[in-house]
Structures are given as C-alpha cells and as structure tokens.
C-alpha cells in the first residue's frame, strides 16, 4: 500500500513536471488565462470609473473574472494531449490516476499563478477594502481547489469533442454553479468586514464540495480517459 502510494505520487509528479515544462515552453494556457483575466479586469475597471461598489457586487465581479479566465486555459491540459496525438502514448504507459492527479496539480498551479496576478490588480482597480485580505485569501485558496477539482474531469471529457472551447464553459457551468454561489456569498461577507466564522457554513460547503469532486473525478476519470 505504502509503495503503491509512493509510486502514485512520483508518477503524478512526473506528469505534473512534464506539463509544467510544456507550458513554460509554449505558454499557451498561461497566455490565454492572463490575457482574458487582465482584459476583463480592464473592462470592469473602465466601466466602473470612480464608482464605489458594494461588497456583494465586488464578490460577484471577482469570481466572474476568475471563472471565465480559468475557463479559457484549464482545458488545455487535456486538449493539448489530444491535439498533438500524445494521449494514446500516455494511455498506454501511464496509470490513469497518476495522469488525473498530475493534471489536477498542474491546473491548481496555473490558477494559483493567475490568482497571484489578478487578485491584487482587482483590489487596486476596484478600490475594494483590503481590511479582510487574509480571510479573503483563505476563501480564494479554497475556491481555486474547488475550481480545479470540478473542471479537470470536464476538461478530459471535452478534449475529445470537436468544439472544445465553448463546450468547456457550457459543461462546467452547471457543476460549478453551487460552488460559485457559495464563493460569491462568502466573499461578500469577508469584503463586508465580517470574520471567517461568519462564513463558516459556506466554507464547510466549499471544502466538502472539493472532497466530493476530487473523489468522484478519480473514480470516473479512468472511464473518461480510456475509450
């Protein structure tokens, strides 16, 4: 059991490092995510002007930007394998669990990088209060885990479809909707200056959502990945 787990970790890590290396050499996913994120942020900023927005609107705006930026890049991790016809070689040589976990870690790293750039810019452009910044980062971290957990399996499904880009957002949206509502509501509370304990129920829901999604994805991925 121990050897199996250690083996799975090292194989997942190999997939993660390979994807990271490919991404650093092509920058396809990074460029897509950053271009979308920064463009949306600029549009929001220009349209708002000097208007001060209530926390409810700020929370919603922030997660809309994160959601659509993520949708523009997260599917790449599987789409690239199918388009370059490397998926079959990977299927022949790699444990499906290692492929899923490696790509989940990669998407997580991609979103962390995106959030590290978009979040400070969002606070600067919208003039949002930074009083509860640490609490907001906790919500953001859980939200990123949730986003990756729910979208990595969808990315594997749509990678085999003809119309990949549009299908990703359309298929992912119903699965992500409960999570996005919880994230928006908890972000609103934190931006209003309330403590994390005020958003405890939402946070519990978001953690449970991530656990359910990752477990279900690991169980189902093998059937999606193989023909």
């Amino acid at each position: 059991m121990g050897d199996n787990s250690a083996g799975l970790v090292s194989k997942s890590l190999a997939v993660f490092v390979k994807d990271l290396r490919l991404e650093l050499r092509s920058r396809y996913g990074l460029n897509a995510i950053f271009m979308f994120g920064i463009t949306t942020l600029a549009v929001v900023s220009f349209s708002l002007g000097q208007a001060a927005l209530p926390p409810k609107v700020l929370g919603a705006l922030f997660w809309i930007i994160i959601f659509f930026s993520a949708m523009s890049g997260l599917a790449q991790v599987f789409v690239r394998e199918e388009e370059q016809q490397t998926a079959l070689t990977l299927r022949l040589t790699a444990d499906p669990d290692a492929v899923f976990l490696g790509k989940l870690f990669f998407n997580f790293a991609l979103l962390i990088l995106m959030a590290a750039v978009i979040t400070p810019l969002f606070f600067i452009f919208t003039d949002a209060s930074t009083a509860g910044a640490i609490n907001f980062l906790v919500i953001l971290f859980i939200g990123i885990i949730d986003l990756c957990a729910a979208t990595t399996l969808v990315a594997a499904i749509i990678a085999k479809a003809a119309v990949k880009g549009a299908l990703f957002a359309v298929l992912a949206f119903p699965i992500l909707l409960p999570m996005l509502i919880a994230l928006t509501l908890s972000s609103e509370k934190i931006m209003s200056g309330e403590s994390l304990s005020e958003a405890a129920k939402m946070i519990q829901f978001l953690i449970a959502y991530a656990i359910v999604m990752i477990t279900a994805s690991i169980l189902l991925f093998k059937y999606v990945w193989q023909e």
Partner: protein
Amino acid sequence: MFALKAVKLSKKFGQRTVFSDINLELNSGDSIAITGPNGSGKTTLLKLLVKLHRPTSGNVNFFDDGRALDEDALRHRVSFVSPYLNLYDQLSGEENLNFFAAVRGGNITGKGIESLLEKVGLAKRGLDLVGTYSTGMKQRLKYALALSNNPQFLFLDEPMSALDDSGKEIVKKIIDEFREQCVIVLATNEKEEYALGRQQCRLG
C-alpha cells in the same frame, strides 16, 4: 514464459463489422505478421490487443507463467510502435524517454538513454527537441521508447514506416534481438515486412 490470448475478438464501428471471431494464442518466441488490404482492420486489431480500444465482443488476456497480468504489469511489459502514437514535440528526445520511464514507475539512467539512442541511430541528438526531428527520426525515437522498458510483448504497426534503409536495418536487428524473448505482433501491408513475423494472419 509470457503468453497472449485473444478469444473471439470482434469489432464493429456502427453497423460496419471490421472483423469478427479472431482467435490468437502466442507465446514468448512467437512472432506474427498481421497482413491485409487497407481498411481490413490491422491497426484496429493491434489497438484492441494492447487494450487502447475495447472490442465489441471477445477478450484479450496477457499471462506470465499462466498468471494473468493486471493493467499495471502490462504497462511495464507491453511496448507499441505506431505512426499514431506521438511523443512530445516540445520535449527533447531524452526528456521524452525520462518522462515515460518515470510515469511507468521505472527508472532510466543517463547511460541507459545514451545506449538506447545510439541503438536507434540518434546518438548526439538526444538533447534536441523532438519537434525538430524528421518523421524518420521520430519513428526511431519511438523504437527507443519501446525498448526502454525491455518489453515482453512488442507490437509494431507499420514497423518501417518513414524509415530510410539504415533505419529499416535497425528495426530488423531489434526484431531479431527480441524475437526469442518476446511475443511480437506486427501489422503491415508491405510485402517485404511479411517475413519479419514467423507466422502470418491475413485480414479481409
């Protein structure tokens, strides 16, 4: 002793039957050439045998001294060279070999990689990105990958596709070297390649 048994294999795409009721029983030391015209199902049969596709009916099993091999064991013992199994263009030849060894759960040393690359005629090109390789060089690298896990089951689809004369000689040497220890299944419609298998199975 390793063995491959395929029982009553059939494959349909929609209403079209590609082939039906194919039985194969091969042991270490056996080599078979699957032949037949275009569209007869040679590639499909190979994909079913390596479990990349599922048959419409029938089953394929691999054995080691009579014990059935599970999926994880197969990843270590089966190698497949085919025009539609690509390697990563944005990784170098060495990085590709390292990655696939790691993801199989094995390990490959720098010397091991050098020796494999030399064997397929790619010495000193290991650090170049695969995207800069010619089609024939990519085919050679696929052979290096196929040999990297010292396979007991070797599947070759169009084994000499895109190779020049020296590449073809390398493939013949590899097949001769592995013939006694491996089950070798190759699919081809080139007459000069029929002789690479000691047995023949004609589809269509």
